[in-house]
């Protein structure tokens, strides 16, 4: 997929839209452009496309169709989930917990809530980037209304046992609502909110070869929650704004592919990761893996590998690989544009130099072994070149 000769290994930042999905989106944009709220036939046709997309998403997640809110992406879903739940439940209590390795679209709403008088606490992770159940259980109180913990971390790929964490929190306080940012998890691990026992989760389409600008929020039907997006009353009055029909259709196709092929895709990506680590090990270059044991499928997502090469800054290495048309990332795409080092790597208590040196290689089912071989060749050439210069 993508342009010839490019090796794209930054799939946790975004992915190429699958050509057949782009075609389907174009078809909707050009021919089925009706507004689902319109009363005429074109409107009905659009509403039917939207409904079919929602049915697909619901069946991928194993939820009711009316529990899916289509949003502009996961950042919006995270904002709506956290602010809406906090607002609706503030009389029950004002204590909220989130993990130290959340995405900024969770951290910032939490900071906002803290300024508005909520008591917001950060749950630490261990050195592998995992939230431990007893640690979380210890923090939950009578006044805790909300816990938010991401399922797969975008920088280091650590996988949380969400079912276990939700259970641990509810053992202390059964009224706690549990939210999980599942952007990196969807299509890589099983994401079924009812089985996991959680109330809200956020998804994004563009990490699964779907389009940018569309995502979803799962909201448990029984939850007390306030909408913050008011207007025409679309999405069952929970998120106003004319629905992004082409986006929803593209998202549904991407989700369907990802869910259908979950197991073979994961096996493929793990085997690429394994291959990468083996080839890297055969080179004469020292490196360190940041986060969980990369081959432990219980704690490490198949598509993310975060590594540091001692004494080499991540951004320098990134640009050296770019010379060979290989695209990787330093930290996460958002934080690599700021000069400060990543809060996720800091939460692992990594020494500063190792955090500055971290690069993230993130796979998609479309990558292949040939590309991994070229990556390792290029990496080892770049590392020794940079070494010679330092």
């Amino acid at each position, binding site marked *: 997929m993508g342009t010839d000769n490019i090796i794209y290994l930054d799939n946790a930042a975004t992915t190429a839209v699958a050509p057949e999905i782009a075609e389907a989106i174009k078809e909707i944009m050009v021919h089925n452009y009706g507004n689902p709220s319109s009363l005429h036939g074109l409107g009905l046709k659009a509403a039917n496309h939207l409904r079919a997309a929602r049915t697909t998403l619901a069946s991928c997640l194993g939820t009711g169709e009316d529990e899916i809110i289509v949003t502009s992406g996961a950042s919006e879903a995270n904002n709506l989930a956290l602010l809406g739940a906090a607002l609706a439940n503030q009389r029950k209590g004002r204590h909220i917990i989130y993990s130290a390795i959340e995405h900024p679209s969770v951290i910032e709403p939490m900071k906002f809530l803290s300024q508005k008088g909520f008591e917001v606490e950060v749950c630490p992770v261990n050195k592998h980037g995992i939230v431990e159940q007893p640690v979380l259980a210890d923090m939950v109180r009578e006044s805790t209304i909300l816990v938010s913990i991401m399922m797969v971390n975008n920088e280091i790929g650590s996988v949380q046992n969400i079912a276990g964490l939700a259970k641990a929190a509810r053992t202390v306080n059964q009224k706690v609502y549990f939210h999980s940012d599942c952007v990196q998890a969807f299509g890589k691990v099983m994401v079924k909110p009812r089985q996991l026992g959680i109330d809200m989760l956020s998804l994004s389409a563009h990490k699964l070869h779907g389009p940018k600008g569309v995502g979803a929020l799962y909201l448990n039907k029984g939850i007390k929650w306030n909408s913050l997006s008011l207007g025409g009353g679309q999405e069952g009055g929970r998120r106003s704004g004319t629905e992004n029909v082409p986006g929803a259709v593209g998202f549904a196709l991407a989700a369907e592919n990802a869910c259908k092929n979950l197991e073979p895709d994961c096996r493929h990506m793990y085997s690429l990761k394994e291959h990468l680590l083996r080839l890297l090990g055969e080179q004469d270059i020292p490196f360190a893996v940041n986060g969980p044991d990369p081959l432990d499928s219980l704690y490490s997502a198949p598509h993310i590998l975060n590594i540091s090469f001692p004494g080499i800054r991540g*951004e*320098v290495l990134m640009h050296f690989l770019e010379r060979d048309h290989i695209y990787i990332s330093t930290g996460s795409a958002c934080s690599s544009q700021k000069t400060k080092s990543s809060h996720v790597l800091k939460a692992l208590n990594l020494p500063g130099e190792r955090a500055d040196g971290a690069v993230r290689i993130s796979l998609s089912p479309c990558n292949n072994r040939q590309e991994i071989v070229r990556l390792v060749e290029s990496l080892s050439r770049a590392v020794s070149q940079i070494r010679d*210069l330092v």
Partner: protein
Amino acid sequence: MFNAILCRYGELGLKGDNRGYFEKTLLSNIVQVLEPLAGVSVKRLSGRILVTYQQNVESVLERLRLVFGLVSISPAIVVKPDVEEIYQAAEHLFSGFYNAKTFAVRCRRSDKRFPMKSPQLGAWLGSRIIENHPDLKVDLGSPDLAVNVEVRESLALVYAAVYPGPGGLPVSSSGHGVLLLSGGLDSPVAGWMAMKRGIKLTAVYYHSFPFTGDHAKQKVIDLARRLAAYNRGSMQLVIVDVASIQETIIERCPEKLRVTLLRRMMLRLAESLAAQIKAQVLITGDSVGQVASQTLESLNVISEAVDMLLLRPLCAMDKTEITALARQIATYETSILPYQDCCSLFLPRHPATRPALRETLQAEALVEWQPLLENAFNTREVINLAASLS
């Protein structure tokens, strides 16, 4: 009713026999920056320049405010040299100035065939205005509204407001210079100051892929576009790749002299460019004592690499003053973006703050630089940028 802008220039008038040349340059600069706008004409009156327009007065004003050499500008009404028309125009000034309680009329007459003498015309206009506005009082010292009338051979000008222009000398009236432009705060301000003294600029940026990424290059392009607004609406940006020079310095020369040597190479490349485009001066953003390469010892050793005139307009300015100017000329927001213009890999742990010339020349003698410099210069990229207005 407003249909013209009266432009004044001050210092130019002092230039004796060269006055015609300065005026011509200023006139052509104004024509150049207004060229993209339709319906605008520019002509020279004695000691003034008159811009008439049909629409877009804001765009005309915005552009004129960036023309060095203009001391002040006034939105004006151009009418025939006829007393009744002059009176109607004067009345119009009051319609835009509802709160005026006092006024004065100031007349000048360069066309001595005009039937009234200046004081006579002033008195006549004043009494007509009072007839129409019985509450108005005359205050010749500091009126709320001064009605200025200039009667010339074929036209009369009526205006009230006088706005300051940017001052300085018309760009290119002093000659042509090469600005060493980085992505930092200082060099764009240095370029602005050089243009203010009439130097037309060509900018040179030293790129160093893969040590620095394309974001750093884009930042410099954006800065050059902004500076182009002052540089007669366009800027030629020359991009020279110095990666192989940097590599050679790292490999072959003492670590503490890296920056000193690189700066000498940069000046040499700028000198080659200046020779090619017949520029007379190099301009850098150095400020004395700011960093290790800007001590007097460093500046001495660095300047020694070239023979041609090298100006450092910011030499005696503090960072706070430079920052204030950067904000004023709207380069600040771009300059503070985090993409580094020089690779951290390259910076020595302990740079020489007082490099000795002898030591530097010895270090330089270790390598045959000419082929490296020639190759870098010959593979330069040239981009012609049109101005971006803020």
